């Protein structure tokens, strides 16, 4: 039995194409990434970047949602949520950072090209970038963050990083020291949730990476996610056409986030499955408490290994539960509805917190080997912690939960 199949998930709800995609991704990443991990480490140029091309362009993850007549695969019904989960798990197992980038790409596709809310004009404009086979679209988001100016326009308490004003049929964007969610150094397309001058409703505006007036700072060092080469940005009088504004409403913004959180949840599960495989090898071979006592047979370490498997298993089920909610809007409501959005936010935080604990435990069980780069475990520990921080403060996300469950109004 494929050891990943030990962790149950609702296979019966996945289509054959999803299962086939997962199986071929599993083989591909095993050969191209997992088996070469030791040799190439977290080397972005050598190992990760060519594989990003392969996953997004050759396998075609970046064509998934777009209409067929625009070069896409038009796999754009809500059931694509299962495809996203099944694919990103596999990519996340190989490299959390690559899956994190792919989660951005897929969330943007879902926001633009989902069958029910398909924005034909926007699709016609942007699909070619994703479907013309020229290269990977590295998508990054610019979302509100803790600010440094108490009076700056804010979204739910956090400051917008970009201000937009409409001018002669287009938009002019301004912002300084912007920190995007990934890839500030090399993203090809940014999606920014912007404050709009003189208006209540914010706007989600796409900014091509090569837009005049967009400048990128140096790549900065961070805990993990080597595939995301992040850097701060400045936007100074960046002009984009009116059509680059994809939406103005809460509902659409949350829809984007719900799909994004699904991608991140699946990415996290992938990282956990990788940790499982590494720990399994350790547990099968390491000896403690003297000759002949195999690690996994020790009552204490065996129990902890069991707990880690429990954490992974529950996380995988939650990921597919979220996919199930997104896949069935007639039962659960729109992906941008309060209930689905809140659930997505709860699940992504729950799974990331569980992953943090499980990775801490796995490191404990492997002691120095867990801490050594050679064993390739610690990178998942660093990567998933980085993802957790980028998803945002768990403490403040709890206010969203309270708004939904208790009707809190001012939080």
């Amino acid at each position, binding site marked *: 039995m494929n050891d990943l199949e030990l962790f149950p998930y609702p296979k019966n709800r996945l289509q054959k194409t999803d299962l086939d995609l997962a199986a071929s991704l599993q083989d591909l990443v095993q050969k191209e990434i997992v088996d070469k991990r030791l040799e190439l480490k977290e080397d972005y140029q050598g190992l990760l970047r060519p594989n990003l091309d392969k996953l997004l362009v050759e396998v075609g993850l970046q064509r998934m949602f777009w209409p067929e007549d625009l070069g896409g695969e038009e796999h754009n019904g809500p059931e694509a949520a299962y495809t996203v989960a099944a694919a990103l798990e596999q990519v996340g197992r190989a490299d959390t950072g690559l899956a994190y980038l792919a989660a951005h790409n897929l969330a943007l596709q879902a926001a633009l090209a989902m069958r029910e809310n398909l924005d034909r004009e926007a699709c016609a404009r942007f699909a070619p970038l994703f479907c013309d086979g020229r290269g990977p679209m590295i998508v990054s988001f610019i979302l509100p*963050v*803790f*600010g*440094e*100016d*108490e*009076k*700056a326009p*804010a979204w739910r*308490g*956090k*400051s917008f990083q970009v201000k937009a004003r409409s001018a002669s049929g287009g938009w002019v964007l301004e912002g300084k020291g912007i*920190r995007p*969610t990934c890839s500030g150094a090399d993203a090809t397309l940014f999606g920014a949730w912007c404050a709009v001058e003189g208006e209540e409703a914010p706007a989600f505006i796409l900014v091509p990476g090569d837009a005049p007036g967009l400048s990128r700072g140096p790549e*900065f*060092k*961070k*805990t*993990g*996610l080597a595939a995301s080469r992040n850097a701060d940005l400045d936007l100074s009088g960046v002009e984009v056409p009116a059509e680059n504004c994809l939406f103005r409403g809460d509902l659409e913004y949350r829809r984007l986030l719900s799909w994004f959180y699904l991608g991140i949840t699946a990415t996290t599960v992938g990282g956990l499955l990788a940790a499982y495989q590494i720990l399994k090898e350790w547990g099968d071979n*390491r*000896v*403690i*408490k*003297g*000759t002949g006592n195999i690690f996994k047979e020790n009552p*204490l*370490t065996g129990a*902890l290994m069991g707990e880690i498997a429990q954490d992974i298993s529950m996380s995988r089920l939650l990921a597919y539960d979220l996919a199930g909610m997104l896949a069935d809007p007639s039962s659960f409501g729109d992906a941008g509805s309060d209930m689905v959005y809140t659930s997505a936010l709860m699940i992504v935080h729950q799974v990331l917190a569980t992953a*943090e604990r499980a990775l*801490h435990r796995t*490191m*404990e*069980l492997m*002691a*120095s080997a*867990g*801490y*050594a*780069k*050679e064993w390739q475990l*610690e990178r998942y*520990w*660093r990567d998933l*912690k*980085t993802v*957790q*921080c*980028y998803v*945002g*403060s*768990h*403490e*403040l996300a*709890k*206010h969203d939960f309270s708004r939904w469950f208790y009707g809190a109004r001012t939080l």
Partner: protein
Amino acid sequence: MRGIDVFSRPLEYLTPLGEQVGEIIREWVEKEVIPYRRGFDEDYLEHRLIHPPFKKLLGEYGIQRILFPEDLGGWGLGHSEYLCVAAFRMFEEIARADSGMAVAFGVVFWPLVLICCEPHVNRRLCEEFAPMFMTNEPVFSCLAMTEPQGGSDIENVEVLKGSTIRTVAVRDGDEWVINGHKLWPTNTGGVADLMGVVCTTNPGSRNPEDIAIIFVPADAPGVTQGPAYEKAGMAADKNGDIWFENVRVPLWYRACGPGDDAKYYGEIVSMGNMGSIAFAVGVMLNIYEKLQEYVNRKTYRGMPLKENDAVAGVLADFATTIEAVRIIGYQCARMCDRQDLYGPRWSPEVVARARAHRYFAADRALEAIGKVMNLMECFGPDRDWDVEKHWRDIKMVQLWLGGKQLSQMEVARWFFECETL
């Protein structure tokens, strides 16, 4: 802004010497370490940035001499009832800048405890090795326990009694001939000048008299150190392989003698655990400084971030963790110092308490720092805020010294009188 000195310490334990050296170290870290530490990760192999500050602290300030008797050029701290409290303060101050450096610093003294501290001063070995340390160049020691097949079993002396040690010391006339392979000791990877090596004189034996801790100068023929490993953190501590191939040292290089090496090994464990708590505290003190800057500077809902009640809850938990862990750490140090009150620091009782204090401290610190990183959102994992580095570094404090689970077993064994764990 309130500084790091707001956190509780049992003032009645402190010593003028420890405090004075603590102040000197504080100045040193601010000038010589903190401005450079963001480059340490990439410097793990060469130590181009890490070596110069050590030269100043250990060599030029002469702190590497402190354990040796005064008449041999040392400061005589081996005889002091305040050794551990003073060490705690020093470790905290260094770890505030870099806990990898604090470990490397602490381990300079670790094997020397066996020969410099009452009641088991080995005068002849003090005389032999003191001159090595009386120089302006930094001198490093290491204590080599861990082997490829496992570190925990070697540390699990009470149950396994040295039976898994594969580094063998065979007596040949008036010399030991040592053969074996060690992994991971702090200050290896080419750094160590003097090694304390945990050996067996009779492979497979469960007789504590066969456990021998033998000093080996790093330049003895037959000693080879491999390059430093690449790790998740703690770049300022180099760890690597050491191979011993027919290495010959005089018989009297054995630290304490048959039976006593195994017995006083417990002291090494207690003091290692005590130091580990200080590393966790030092790291948290620096994160407190960084976090203050962050929550004052950043805004949320039109106010400084810290003025949000939910955020303040996280801040309070962090401050509470520092308060509690620091008090526990100083108590652990005091316990190791006042053997007249608490019993010998090599006793299973003190070892178990020190292990309990350390694993509690490490668990709390990691949990608390993890929450701080999350509160800092995308700046939490950002190298320029320094918090993530501490998070990566301090994880090791939970993993070494036989790992967390061995600590749990030793604590249960003592408090519940378990016999087979």
